[in-house]
């Protein structure tokens, strides 16, 4: 029973990326920040009452699922794609999608390439152990093209190889590409090709078989998304908790019904989760949004009310 364990431990073990700017990266003093990190904080706040009670476990593409399966981490908040086999065969449960992504290619401008279809014979840098590796093989096979993979272990290494010209193209999720490109000294010299060759719904995952824990993480995520939909922000949170007349908001913030009891938490769990780093929109804007060096547009990740795909299930 993960919930009891976490409570007993007084700390949430959260699996994150070893370092991907904007999503999860330690700063010089070892404090983790990022879009994925915010999920960890929200869950910790909901469960333990303190967003700081998280132990971040850096995982590589290769170690992440085992870390989860073996119980080393309680939740994997690391850009991992929700796929059929992972959900079924790997004995994971993806609880939702915090970022709708797709795999893309980044190339240097002077290569003169404008479409992924022109990459026949190119050398492509790719992180091992990811779905991108499989997508890449499928894409080139489907288009009857050949390529030479350069296997790398981490994003840092991928950047090094790509910048040195050891590969013509770097492929990973478009968000990751944007983050990487943003960190370059000369972002204008690199373009992300228009083809998105796969669907990459990224989301937190938990171990299969503990559905109560899964529920907690799932609804924490939805709480963040719903909060944006209802206009709850970290600033007006307390105020709305007192004054809001919207029954949905009241339920969410635990002023009326006790939804928390149904998942083994207290009334104010969602309020704390939102307070941790703000609602979904705030988190997005603060870590990867257009105002940040990463500079991602909301796109698919806008609220469903704004024409995007982010859609929180009703709190009822």
């Amino acid at each position: 029973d993960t919930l009891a364990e976490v409570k007993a431990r007084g700390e949430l073990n959260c699996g994150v990326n070893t370092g991907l700017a904007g999503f999860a990266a330690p700063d010089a003093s070892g404090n983790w920040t990022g879009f994925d990190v915010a999920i960890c904080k929200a869950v910790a706040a909901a469960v333990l009452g303190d967003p700081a009670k998280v132990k971040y476990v850096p995982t590589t593409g290769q170690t992440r699922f085992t870390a989860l399966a073996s119980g080393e981490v309680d939740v994997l908040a690391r850009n991992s794609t929700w796929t059929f086999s992972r959900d079924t065969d790997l004995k994971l449960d993806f609880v939702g999608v915090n970022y709708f992504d797709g795999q893309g290619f980044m190339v240097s401008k002077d290569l003169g390439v404008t479409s992924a279809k022109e990459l026949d014979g190119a050398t492509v840098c790719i992180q091992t152990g990811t779905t991108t590796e499989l997508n890449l093989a499928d894409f080139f096979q489907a288009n009857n093209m050949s390529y030479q993979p350069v296997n790398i272990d981490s994003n840092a290494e991928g950047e090094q190889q790509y910048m040195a010209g050891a590969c013509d193209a770097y492929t990973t999720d478009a968000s990751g590409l944007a983050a990487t490109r943003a960190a370059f000294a000369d972002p204008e010299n690199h373009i992300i090709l228009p083809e998105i060759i796969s669907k990459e719904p990224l989301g937190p995952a938990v171990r299969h078989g503990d559905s109560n824990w899964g529920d907690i993480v799932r609804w924490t995520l939805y709480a963040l998304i719903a909060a944006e939909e209802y206009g709850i922000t970290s600033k007006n949170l307390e105020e709305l908790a007192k004054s809001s007349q919207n029954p949905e908001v009241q339920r969410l913030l635990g002023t009326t019904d006790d939804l928390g009891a149904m998942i083994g938490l207290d009334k104010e769990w969602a309020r704390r989760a939102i307070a941790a780093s703000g609602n979904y929109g705030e988190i997005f804007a603060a870590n990867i949004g257009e105002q940040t060096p990463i500079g991602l547009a909301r796109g698919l990740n806008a609220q469903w009310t704004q024409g995007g795909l982010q859609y929180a299930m009703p709190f009822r």
Partner: protein
Amino acid sequence: MSDTHAQTVSFVRETMIEASPPPEKQAGAVKWLRENLFSGPVNTALTLLAILAIWFLINHFWNWVAHSVWNANSLNECRQIIRDTWGEGSTGACWAVIRERWNQYTFGFYPMDLYWRPTMSFGLLFVALAPVLFSESRKIRRIVLAVAAVVTLASMIQLNAPTPWLIFAAIVLIGGLIISERNNSWLLVFSLLYPFLGVWWLWGGSLWGPIMVIVGPVLGYIAWKLLGRISPILASVGMIGVTLFWWLALAGRAARDAENILSLAITPVNSDRFGGFLLSTTIGIAAIAISLPLGIVLALARRSDMFLVKSLAVMFIEFIRGVPLITLLFVASLLLNYFLPPGTNFDIILRVIIMVTIFAAAYMAEVIRGGLAALPKGQYEAADALGLDYWKAQRLIILPQALKISIPGIVSTFIGMFKDTTLVTFVGLYDPLKSMSDAVRASTAWKGIYWEPYIFVGAIFFIICFGMSRYSMYLERRLQRDHR
């Protein structure tokens, strides 16, 4: 036969000739050059080749090293400074990254205000090691302890250590120095306590935890003494049983209760904050300390004439030596939880230490086995003939000698293991070499810097490993001289 004597000229020297100095051509620089560098065509060619190689290295790296920049906030700034100072197109080393990030390389993500704790632990380590490592020479011990004391205290002051701890460290360091002058083996008490204190200082939390761990064997010993009157077998079983029972069932609760009664806690620091050389040395020292006794046990088991014990030892040693350390680390990070009861989950650093220890122990066992085999049979026989039993003979006669013979092997195993601590990067820990450099490079300011971090980390590894190997050579020579 007697006729031959006629030819013998009887000779007796009346005066002794004084020793005279060797003739002139025996010495001199020119002779040295001729003999050592240009004694033949092949030799001359080799000399020229060597000079060429040295010139090539200097030619390629001198500029780079000479154009070093120590003060900058980013790689670009560094390059700008180099360009400004030495002209367009010149290259140079940017050591500023080390200057800016040295603390990360040293302490990882350890909380900055607590840097003094690892520093103190490291300094006091020398006091703990004094009776074990430097027992051979009073002079060396004096120097090592004095240097450790000065450096540790100075760094602690620099790192704003709280005064009570500063006083504590000063007492231990200076006390250690004084005690070691009088009777070195008294310091063994501190050596035995150090592992527990060290863990406490590094990870923080309550001192009651380590104390309760120590209580286990103490209770076991009491049980052994009590039951020993009835039957030795019962005593051994009792000892192990009591110790394990205490550890597994009672120690945790006892520690918690004790903490509630009297709090002995200092700020806890999580394993994920360990990194850089702090991580390397923690893993290295812990593994060294545990692998030696484990290796001894394995070596003795492998030399045992009991078939089953021997085969188990052989299987274990050969298995561990037959697989790469990396796979063992992966087992630690991926599989260990499969083998343990559901729900157990312990620290990744601890798991890594266990694996590295097991790995080193297997190698250590082979080294010590070599030492045991090198002992003449007479030593065993003399011990037997004096009526010493197996364990006493091992402890008093065999092992002290075998370990001394094995010192070079033991030290090179240590060196190998210390170098191998860099492999923890592959299970997501922040080793100084790869992960830490990657982390530094992940920041926009230092993206694209390779050589300087590698050279820096490499140089530190070199100093430590080279130092260790020299120390072992010194010991070896010294042991040959002593007792002989």
